[in-house]
Each structure stands twice: as structure tokens, then as C-alpha cells.
């Protein structure tokens, strides 16, 4: 389970919304980190795609946060970022020097699938109907996101047989 210390049988709708916000925040920040890595390693296509994904994750985060504030105003949260471990955020190990756009999209697809698996695993534990409804909605969104990524993947030409890693620059100095 990529979360710790969260009891899904008793989680409130407020904390479930906060968890969803934090999941999006974690994913956004990770995509930005990956984009920075790509920038440093002169891989602009993958960098651009990761920044696009970061914007998308942030959009979802803001939407969820607005819902949270509408329902629960500024009530303190019962969950923290420290309780999450890469729920929707792509693993650091996904990144590679000179990633192709296809590889970057495949990374995003695996992350969306990972998030779907998380919501799917948690759902049977949920008792509160409001929380169940929210998680069902979030799980369905992950399916939609996967479809969007697959559609973009289908537009790309296949990668060549060239192994870009074999021609990667060594780590570079920093200003």
C-alpha cells in the first residue's frame, strides 16, 4: 500500500478529499522534478511532456481543493503528505537520459495505471458512502486519463532501435 497510517474503513470525506489533493500534489511535484532532470540532460521533448503532465495534475489538485473548501471550509486536515509514497507520482526509477516522447508517455501511463490500482484496492475497504462515491469517481478518472495517454501514444511513430542510453552524456557540472 503506498500510504501509511490511514484507516480506510473510518476515513472521513474531508480526509479523503485531502488525500486526493495530496495525491495530485505529489504527482505534480514529481513530474516537475522529472522535467528538471530532462532539462538538465538536454531532453526537451520529454521535459515538455512532463511539464504538461505537471500542469494537468495541478489542475486536478485545484479542482479537488475547491470542492474540499466548499464542503469543509478550512477545517484542519487529518492526513499529511508524509503518509503518501508515490501513489500517482511516477517512480524516480522511470526516468532515463534522452527519454523519447514515447518513453515519457509510457511513464505517465504506468503512473495512471498505478493510481487506478490504488483506488481499486482501497474501494472494498470503504464504508462511508460519500468516500466510496469519491473514490469511484477518482478511479474512473484514472481510466479516462489512461485513454488520453494511449491516444497520444498511438499518434507517435515507433521508437527506432537506437539505444539512447548508450550515447548519453555523463553527469554534468552545476553552476
Amino acid at each position, binding site marked *: 500500500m*503506498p500510504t*501509511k497510517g490511514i484507516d480506510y474503513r473510518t476515513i472521513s470525506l474531508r480526509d479523503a478529499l485531502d488525500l486526493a489533493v495530496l495525491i495530485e500534489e505529489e504527482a505534480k511535484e514529481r513530474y516537475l522534478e522529472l522535467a528538471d532532470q530532462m532539462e538538465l540532460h538536454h531532453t526537451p521533448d520529454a521535459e515538455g511532456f512532463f511539464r504538461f503532465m505537471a500542469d494537468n495534475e495541478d489542475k486536478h489538485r485545484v479542482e479537488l481543493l475547491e470542492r474540499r473548501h466548499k464542503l469543509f471550509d478550512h477545517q484542519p486536515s487529518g492526513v*499529511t503528505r*508524509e503518509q503518501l*509514497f508515490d501513489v500517482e507520482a511516477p517512480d524516480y526509477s*522511470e526516468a532515463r537520459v534522452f527519454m523519447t516522447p514515447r518513453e515519457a508517455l509510457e511513464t505517465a501511463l504506468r503512473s495512471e495505471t498505478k493510481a487506478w490500482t490504488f483506488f481499486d484496492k482501497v474501494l472494498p475497504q470503504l464504508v462511508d458512502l460519500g468516500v466510496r462515491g469519491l473514490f469511484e469517481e477518482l478511479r474512473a478518472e484514472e481510466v479516462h486519463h489512461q485513454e488520453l495517454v494511449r491516444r497520444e501514444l498511438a499518434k507517435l511513430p515507433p521508437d527506432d532501435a537506437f539505444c539512447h542510453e548508450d550515447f548519453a552524456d555523463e553527469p554534468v557540472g552545476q553552476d
Partner: protein
Amino acid sequence: MTLTAKDFKSDLKPIWCPGCGDFGVVQAMYRALAAIGRPPHEIAFVSGIGCSSRIPGYTTAYGFNSVHGRALPIAQGIKLARPQLLVLAAGGDGDGFSIGGGHVPHAIRRNMDITYVVMDNQIYGLTKGQLSPTSPRGLQTVTSVGGSLEQPINPLLYVLAYGAGFVAQGTPADMAGLTAVIEEAIRYPGFAFVNVQSPCVTYGQENQQIKAHREQMKTLASLGHDATNMAAALARAQHYGSELYTGVFYKNPQPPQTFEAQARERQTQLGPSARPRDRILDMFRQQ
């Protein structure tokens, strides 16, 4: 004040190779430090030289990216001079067990309250892939074209044999587990050692990458390991290189007094008879 992992992240962007295991290690450190709850200005982070030794710069704590293999002597000096600081040392397997290998036993027997995190990738990555002290026998590298003829050092047995009070292992393939062992190591009142299997994505072996770790790793807790039993710890540690055990191998249930605590006691005892600083040279003058 509640601290979060973000409070420990500096503005400096890591320049490690994309996919490097150290990205996960530094994240685990941020989280562990947030859980400890000491603010960055109460923490000193010392490293040697190597890819992983860049870690102090990526934190908001006081940092000292020192010289090759010398993280531990410097960390001990800081701890002795400023015992109230939380002191961490970090580096790679080459830094810790080759160039700095001689310092490890002395840091252990001195037993200062320091946490030493080694990012063990079984290779010298920064200098482009030479044999390191933990490289497996037979490994082909630029300095062992026909395969290594040497037996690797076993870091876990090494530190257990010298009497380290806390010995653990983790991998960024299990971020929750890695965070937990680093936090527990910091909380241990004495010298604590964490070996992190942190893959080198550029020069490391395929079976040492994160994906492989996820398949290979076995948590010691799931095996019913008793972390207070030194004999059991030694038995488990012998499988370094063939089994990827994660969690706490050994934790001394009765931690002995630290060096800095004993030094303070000695200072208190000798204080009344000690010469003032400006008269210290009198010791060397003929009476």
C-alpha cells in the same frame, strides 16, 4: 511547529543521472527528518566524495561536502564540538568502505550519536564505473575487464563485527521501509548505520535496479527476525549479495553511553582543576 519533508528540501536541483536510486534516498531522508521534528538549523549533514555525497547540498540542513572518505571524522568532530546538533553522515560504498574504510571501525567503537547512511551501488559511478569495495566477484568493469577477482566487502557484517549498536538496510524500491529505518537510525542514541542499496542506473548491473529490488527484497520483519539478537543479525547479514533483506538487522536493546556524554562527564570532573585557556601553554613550560 510541525515540519514537513519540504522543509528539508533545498533549492539546488540534483544533478544525478535520471533514474538514480539516490533520488529516492534523499526523499526518504527528508521524510525521516520531518518525522524527527528537529528544524534544519539543528542538523548537520556531512559527506565525503561521490555521487551520493552531493546529498548535503540538497537539504536545508547545515552541510559539509568534505573530502574523500572523511565524512565520519568530520561528523565526529562536529558532534563533539556541538553535541546538541543532530549529525548525519552520508556517502557511497567506495567512500565508506575503501577510502574511508579505516574510519568506520573507530567511529563505531567511539560510539558517538551519529547516523551514517551509505548508498551502496557496488560501483564507482562518479568516476565512470570502476570496481568498488562492494562490487561482486566476477563483475566486469572498466578496471576489471576480465571480471573482478576480489571478494566484496560485506558492509553489514563489517559494522556488526565492530559492534555497531544499530544496523539496518533499505532500498528506494520500498520508500516507506527506507524512511522508517532512517528515522529509527536517527532516533537510536549512538552510532547507527544504514546500508541503502541505491542502484547506479548508468554503470550498475541490471539485477541491481529498482525493478529487480522490488522482486528480490524480503523484509526482516516478515521473516520474524529478532533485531535484539546479535547472532541472528550476523546470520542474516552473511547473505549480503545473495539476498536483499530490508529492515533492522540489529538494535542494541541497552545502548551504551555515547562518547560525547562521557566526554562531558570527564570535562565536568576535571573542570575545577583545569587551566584556563589562556594558560594552556604553561603545560609545556619548565616549572
